């Protein structure tokens, strides 16, 4: 297959996909093509979209998506009646931020950082599929451990957790050094998985 036709196919697939289309899925759909070709085609397509006036090529939740440019939102919104998306409250956002940076984390630990009881907020976040229970902590009471979901990445336009705004950037904005505790990862052996991680 020639370069250009492959590019056309990849573009059509990404455009038509209802969810961010992952490279893995693209490889599967285009199993006859060498992976390097598919990867190179994605890169070429990404470059093409740099100069598209109305559309944008974004990487979200480990996949690719073609979306309208955010600066055009006022015009696009005239098109339809928007389903009112429930905005997250400040509490919801702050709780989500703590979980995003410190996952996996228990409700108690979230509460310690935020200084308030967060069980109600956690329920809301669970209901909206922004967080999920990923295991239990191997301490007394075996409390649930929470982590963010793929839905969270999609909603916030993040490619992966490494795409989260960096703690150091925030430290600069606030004018202090981040406490070391904030950066370190929770030790993995404390966690009891609920299910087998994907092989």
């Amino acid at each position, binding site marked *: 297959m020639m370069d250009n036709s492959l590019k056309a196919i990849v573009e059509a697939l990404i*455009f*038509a*996909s*209802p*969810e961010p289309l*992952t490279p*893995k*899925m693209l490889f*599967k759909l285009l199993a006859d093509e060498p992976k390097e070709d598919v990867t190179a085609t994605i890169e070429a397509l990404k470059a093409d979209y740099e100069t598209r006036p109305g559309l*944008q090529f*974004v990487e979200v939740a480990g996949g690719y*998506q*073609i*979306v*309208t*440019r*955010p*600066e055009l*939102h006022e015009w*696009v919104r005239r098109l339809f009646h928007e389903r009112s*998306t429930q905005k*997250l409250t*400040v*509490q919801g*956002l*702050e709780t*989500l*931020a*703590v979980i*995003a*940076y410190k996952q996996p984390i228990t409700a108690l630990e979230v509460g*310690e*950082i*935020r*200084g*308030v*009881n967060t069980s109600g907020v956690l329920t809301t976040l669970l209901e909206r599929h922004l967080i999920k229970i990923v295991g239990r902590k191997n301490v007394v009471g075996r409390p649930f451990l929470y982590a963010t979901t793929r839905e969270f990445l999609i*909603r*916030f*336009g*993040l490619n992966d957790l490494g795409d*989260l*705004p960096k*703690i150091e950037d*925030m*430290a600069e*904005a*606030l004018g*202090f050094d*981040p*406490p070391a*505790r*904030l950066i370190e990862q929770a030790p993995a052996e404390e966690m*009891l*998985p609920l*299910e*087998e991680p994907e092989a």
Partner: protein
Amino acid sequence: MTEHSEHADFESSPDAYKVKLDSFEGPLDLLIHLIRKNEVNVYDIPIALITEQYLSFITLMQELNLDVAGEFLVMASTLIHIKSRLLLPRPDPSQDDQGIEEDPREALVRRLLEHQKYKAAAELLHERETLRSAQFMRPDARVADAAGEEYEPELEVDLFSLLAAFKGVLERASRRPHMVLPPEEIPIETRIAQLLDRLSETEACGFEDLFADGDGSRGFMIVTFLALLEMIRLKLIRVFQSGGSGAIRVYKRARPTDAPHPIGDPQNP
């Protein structure tokens, strides 16, 4: 708690508080507010002043019949504790074999800073969310379901499918005539051992077949179901379902080394 002159600094209208309380979601928010208002250094908090203002704020909240959450009171006692420790004479460092004593305020400062950091993170997340919500993608009404990452013929079942299947087993059992026999209690551990024996014979087994082994009593079925749940937790078995509503099958599995240990049951498969 006594009346303080700081009351004059607060807005007097109860309505103003309703708005304000939203931003003082927790005691840490209130502390940050007081530190900012007094323009003091977060690394050198004048505890006496801040404690006094904090307490007067709580008193005011109580006077306004607001529900003062327990967290606020815990923080109040923390502040008073820090204040009292600061008032105590410091031990002579030369006689202190514990080394330099930590400033009593330090733990609080760490919490405040960490709290602030996540507030900043929340704001950044909010910015990302706003940007993202300004991007539109095309949904096609004809797309019933994405093909998905995996073309798996089998899906690992979730708890609700399992519960639904169990409900079916119980309902069918209730339709069968039954006699009342002296109950035979089987401990879950025993049932796990039985199930393991049975599963090792066949490798894969229908979910419902596992309930046909016993005396058909409700108690036996419940023990079997609980045993299965425990075995899933202990990673002794895997449970699969073909399609969304197909038959549920149970496989015995090689136990991974990181599997949890059974409580009070050292038995290995």
